[in-house]
């Protein structure tokens, strides 16, 4: 399932555009990743250097779907206003809604998130909420109008992978028809593969690629892992068991002792 608010994506790779060593390396990483979505943000522009304009030209040339975020917003009002500004600049209804509630972990303020979601959905936005794996919150977000959920794997930029496997597995089982994206915390391609193997529809990451020694190579590694995980999930993995079960048939084995 790669349908997000009626838009079908070519793959489950959403890649951030921040922290790359250079614009050329960013563009190269996107080419090697084949990512179908790029996350972007809004910041203060200077009338003298107009840095944002050059960045925008480069991002447009990537020819991917644009998902603006409300990163750094700590209140509902800030997030809603930023979303409106993003919709005008990027000309998209999509918004990656972040309402940050805690500085050390950048954990979402889920109460503010639900409130902001309701306001934005009523105003025609298509909200991609950065949330936790809490099922009650997820249900409130769906009732507020979300058609996608984006639980964190681990704190943003931590690279810790999937911190709460039980919670994420429960989320997948509880909402079998809702597109689910792991957003934040991934550090290695194997973790992205694991997310896809759990049945998640996509992963969104940034730091793991941008801060790698070779971002473009890491982008390709993630793309390969995401594809592998997706194939594995579709192939219906075997059930794990506690005790060994010989894979080589014992019938016909020679008696040699």
């Amino acid at each position, binding site marked *: 399932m790669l349908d997000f608010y009626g838009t079908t994506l070519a793959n489950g790779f959403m890649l951030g555009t921040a922290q790359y060593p250079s614009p050329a390396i960013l563009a190269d990483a996107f080419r090697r990743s084949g990512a179908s979505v790029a996350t972007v943000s809004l910041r203060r522009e200077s009338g003298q250097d*107009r840095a944002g304009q050059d960045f925008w030209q480069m991002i447009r040339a990537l020819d991917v779907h644009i998902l603006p975020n409300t990163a750094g917003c700590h209140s509902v009002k800030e997030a809603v206003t930023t979303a409106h500004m993003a919709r005008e600049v990027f000309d998209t209804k999509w918004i990656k809604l972040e309402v940050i509630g805690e500085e050390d972990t950048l954990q979402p303020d889920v109460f503010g998130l639900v409130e902001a979601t309701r306001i934005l959905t009523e105003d025609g936005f298509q909200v991609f909420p950065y949330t936790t794996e809490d099922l009650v919150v997820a249900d409130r977000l769906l009732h507020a109008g979300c058609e996608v959920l984006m639980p964190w794997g681990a704190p943003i930029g931590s690279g810790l992978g999937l911190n709460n496997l039980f919670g994420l597995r429960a989320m997948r089982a509880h909402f079998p028809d809702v597109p689910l994206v792991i957003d934040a915390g991934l550090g290695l391609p194997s973790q992205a593969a694991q997310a896809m193997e759990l049945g998640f529809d996509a992963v969104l990451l940034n730091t793991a690629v941008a801060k790698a020694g070779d971002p473009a190579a890491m982008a390709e590694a993630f793309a390969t892992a995401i594809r592998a995980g997706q194939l594995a999930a579709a192939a219906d993995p075997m059930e794990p068991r506690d005790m060994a079960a010989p894979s080589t048939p014992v019938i016909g084995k020679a008696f040699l002792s």
Partner: protein
Amino acid sequence: MKLQLNGAMIETQAVMLDGLLQEQGFTGAKIATAVNGEFVPAALRAAQSLNDGDRIEVLAPMQGG
């Protein structure tokens, strides 16, 4: 009048938001604007008057995760 543009105090001759943006080098730029914390859509900039001490935010596309 004096007002804050992206956090910096400036002196301007402009009395409307669209005039301020032209004066400050934003002509033709891909930007979004807010006055005193409230979003002002592009279509309304010409009708948005400015007052002494106003806080103007001019935002543009930037890298994000």
